[in-house]
């Protein structure tokens, strides 16, 4: 689980009487999250369902999700880290000045009330979205919120969970952790995996122009990435695997059409709480699956000479003794 203080959505459904959504808009982006896992569910421990649960929404603007919330906290844009840090101090009764609170756009009364409710909950869960993790502060915001969840456990049971979008992106984290020990931003250029987001993460690599070929699968950076990154993708040979001819396909050297996962390709996908679920594809595609194509590319490359000279490859400890 990568050190997160977290749980499964099943536990949230059964037990969470205090639910915070931070920088996310589940009403529009994860429409069944409320009804399937969080506020609307009745359970053994929360028999009255919605009446037994409190929902707080923290966001920079009043989205559709605010209608479902009991408390809506409108934080000033880019001040999430400050707000989390203030909450971390307030739960421990440490001194926070009015000026420090004013920076977040909220009042002391509102935060006192929030801290009281957090400590009074039997089981609290904080879901955080891209509004927290992709704004000023980035992963430091996520780390601060996870720390707040961990520290709340001095008072009551508290967990945090990221709201993942994009289908099986959770699976990508899990598979990379399993195969390399790191969740993303990895390089193998010394023959063993190394991890350094900012140096080996895609946007940075492309904007700096570090890579000299790109293999894109199940993503469309041509439609989502900043322009300098797209310009670099145009300059280098790009290979795209996708069920459709995408923006990225149009600027690529090679496009291969594959069967869409879960619709015509079988396999496994991870839910946002890292529960693997089998796919049940109803249709038979005329195209091969991603797995078949990448496997064949792997075999074709394995038939060519290995990139590291003989004898210079990193050796296992057992091979050295």
């Amino acid at each position: 689980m990568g050190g997160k203080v977290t749980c499964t959505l099943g536990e949230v459904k059964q037990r969470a009487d205090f639910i915070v959504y931070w920088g996310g808009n589940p009403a529009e982006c994860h429409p069944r999250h409320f009804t399937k896992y969080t506020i609307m569910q009745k359970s053994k421990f929360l028999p009255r369902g919605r009446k037994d649960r409190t929902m707080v929404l923290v966001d920079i603007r009043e989205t559709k999700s605010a209608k479902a919330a009991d408390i809506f906290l409108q934080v000033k844009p880019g001040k999430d880290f400050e707000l989390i840090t203030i909450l971390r101090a307030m739960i421990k009764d440490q001194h926070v000045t009015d000026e420090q609170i004013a920076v977040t756009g909220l009042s002391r009364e509102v935060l006192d009330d929030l801290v009281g409710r957090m400590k009074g909950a039997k089981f609290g869960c904080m879901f955080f979205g891209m509004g927290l993790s992709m704004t000023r502060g980035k992963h430091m915001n996520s780390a601060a919120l996870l720390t707040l969840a961990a520290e709340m456990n001095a008072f009551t049971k508290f967990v945090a969970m990221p709201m993942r979008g994009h289908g099986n992106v959770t699976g990508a984290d899990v598979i990379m952790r399993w195969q390399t020990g790191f969740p993303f931003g990895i390089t193998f250029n010394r023959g063993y995996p190394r991890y350094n987001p900012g140096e080996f993460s895609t946007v940075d690599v492309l904007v700096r122009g570090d890579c000299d070929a790109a293999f894109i699968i199940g993503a469309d950076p041509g439609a989502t990435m900043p322009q300098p990154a797209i310009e670099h993708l145009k300059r280098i040979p790009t290979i795209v695997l996708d069920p459709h001819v995408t923006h990225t396909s149009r600027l690529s050297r090679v496009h291969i059409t594959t069967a869409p996962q879960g619709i015509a390709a079988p396999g496994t996908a991870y839910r946002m709480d890292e529960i693997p679920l089998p796919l049940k594809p109803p249709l038979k595609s005329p195209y091969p699956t991603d797995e078949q194509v990448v496997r064949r590319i792997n075999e074709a490359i394995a038939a060519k000479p290995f990139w590291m000279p003989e004898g210079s490859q990193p050796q296992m400890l057992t091979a050295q003794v």
Partner: protein
Amino acid sequence: MSLQVIDNATCTFCGCVCDDIQLHHDEVRIHEAKRACVLGTAWFLNHTAEKKHPDALVDGREASLDEAIEAAAALLHAADMPLVYGMSNTTCEAQKQCAALADQLGGLLDSHTSL
């Protein structure tokens, strides 16, 4: 022709990965996705088993799968620092192959998470 029904199908549009969807299909397209949300319904109904796109494109021209795989392997093998990126809309089995690809190329491996 009557529609075939698949119970408890899994939707992979968003991170909720709802696994209680009932799909009604005629082997070419999905006509109904019961219990799916607006996003999930659009996801299921917009994909068909028809052959709408060419098998592969190499330098903008239609090519066979075998040619495209050879071209991809040659380009990746020739590169000094290839990048393997994405892996959101694909299965764990394919993701594992991608990790193996980056490993044997000595390249970069990254997902949407870092965006």
